[in-house]
């Protein structure tokens, strides 16, 4: 395998509702910024890949409109995934491994605010047996949370602690949407929105986007004095149907973590794409993260949750800390589908 590194990142400030910009207006500055930071001329990217979903803003072929922000002229080698941008990064990583590319531009974005996101996400469910009932993403997460609590993996107290920790950590994140929290005792005094979930257990609805530049081998070394090397990356799926899965565990995340080599060295930080507090507990177990691992120092998805970008954002947050020298080895996780159905794990390392 070739050595591939993240050499530049950029993101929007994440907000509850960006009612000012179209999708292309939202993502254009992020792409422009990451290109500038990378030091790569925009005509010199060997590959471009993006991730988005038409359902979020109700815009068919959303990615076709946002391609304008890349300035795809002369024509470029480009592809798109209807998944979180973390998988666009994965496709770019594979492309570099084939030898057809040495550099790649990756971006993703989501405007969730135009629709009723939890209801929109019900369209992901099985079209015969589940979607006709319109169960929301929160309803489904609540069933998973109860399974996790019943399995002894977490508790409402532990979940409130996670919410508190995440949002107070985000106070140091200038891009985060939610940057403070009441204390756990106060949080536990609130009503349920979907028993056993309270509002604080759920990621916010967010508009935003992120971008990354990848480079291989010596090119990465030339472009950054401390590239964030992708030492391992893998993704796996679990079954979809709620009734045929044990919702309290994530076997697919465990396989991805093993394939990515999470346990091959000490992990300093983990950015986990846990959209609900209980999912952090499920993922900690699946990835084999000890109590010493700092999880979501950025605040994580509970502080900013731009759909289709929140997974790639986890990779950005780990890469930024490696770039700055604060961290030498970290793990980033991204998820897709509901109830942690699809999981990607990447291990990033600084040089040395």
């Amino acid at each position, binding site marked *: 395998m070739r050595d591939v590194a993240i050499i530049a990142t*950029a*993101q*929007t*400030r*994440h*907000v509850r509702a*960006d*009612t*000012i*910009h179209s999708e292309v*207006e939202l993502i254009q*500055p*992020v792409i*422009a*910024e990451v290109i*500038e*930071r990378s030091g790569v001329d925009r005509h010199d990217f060997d590959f471009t890949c993006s991730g988005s979903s038409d359902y979020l803003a*109700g815009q068919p072929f959303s990615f076709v409109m946002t391609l304008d922000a890349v300035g795809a002229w002369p024509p470029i080698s480009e592809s798109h995934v209807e998944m979180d941008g973390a998988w666009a990064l994965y496709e770019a990583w594979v492309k570099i491994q084939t030898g057809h590319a040495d550099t790649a531009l990756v971006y993703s974005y989501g405007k969730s605010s*135009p629709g*009723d996101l*939890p*209801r929109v996400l*019900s369209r992901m469910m099985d*079209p*015969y*047996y*589940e979607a*006709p*009932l*319109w*169960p*929301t993403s*929160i*309803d489904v997460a*609540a*069933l998973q949370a*109860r*399974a996790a609590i*019943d399995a002894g993996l977490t508790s409402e107290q532990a979940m409130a602690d996670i919410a508190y920790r995440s949002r107070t950590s985000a106070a140091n994140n*200038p*891009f985060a949407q939610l940057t403070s929290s009441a204390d756990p005792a106060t949080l536990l005094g609130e*009503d*349920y*929105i*979907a*028993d*056993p*979930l309270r509002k604080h257990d759920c990621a916010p609805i967010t508009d935003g986007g992120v971008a990354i530049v990848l480079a291989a081998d010596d090119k990465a070394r030339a472009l950054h004095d401390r590239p964030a090397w992708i030492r391992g990356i893998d993704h796996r799926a679990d*079954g979809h*149907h*709620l*009734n*045929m899965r044990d*919702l309290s565990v994530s076997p697919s995340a465990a396989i991805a973590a093993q394939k990515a080599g999470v346990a091959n060295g000490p992990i300093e930080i983990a950015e986990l794409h846990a959209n609900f507090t209980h999912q952090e507990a499920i993922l900690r177990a699946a990835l084999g993260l000890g109590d010493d691992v700092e999880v979501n120092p950025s605040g994580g998805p509970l502080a900013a949750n731009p759909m289709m970008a929140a997974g790639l954002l986890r990779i950005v947050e780990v890469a930024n800390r490696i770039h700055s020298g604060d961290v030498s080895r970290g793990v980033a996780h991204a998820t897709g589908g509901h109830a942690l159905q699809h999981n990607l794990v990447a291990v990033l390392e600084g040089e040395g």
Partner: protein
Amino acid sequence: MFYSAALHPGWTGGDDQGGHMPDEATTIGEQDVLRAPLTLEYPFRRTTGPVIGAFFTGLREGRFIGIEDERGRVLCPPVEYDPLTGGPLTKLVAVGSEGEIVNWTWNTNVREGQPFDRPFAWAMVKLDGADTPILHAVDAPREAIATGLRVRARFAAERIGSLADIECFEPVG
């Protein structure tokens, strides 16, 4: 006519501190940007094939149908494939209309299209004779909802072969 980057600060390029979202635009503010409702409405038709079709035929007749998987477990609702290996499943079996709640939540934020227009319980109900539960709504007060509660299907009076043929589940006795 010209407008410049100054009209929407931060939009045209990066600044390391605040990201790109303008807090306020000097000439065109948030209140000035157009918005409009957009409704997407689709009348989908889904073919069922024989296995899913058997389940909905059963519902129309007021009964539940499951299928045996490769390990002999009964899946209800039935699918055409083994949930672990993807191998084909072919053995349809009858399943009871009563069962027990194995997982649930209380939905306080009711949405259009859901079984009730007031707060209600979603439950995973494992029917007698089945090894996997079915997702539906339960008509019972919140304090009655619990894992282990025995419930039975309340079928709609007019049934056409649809999930709505099950009005909901309700406590037994």
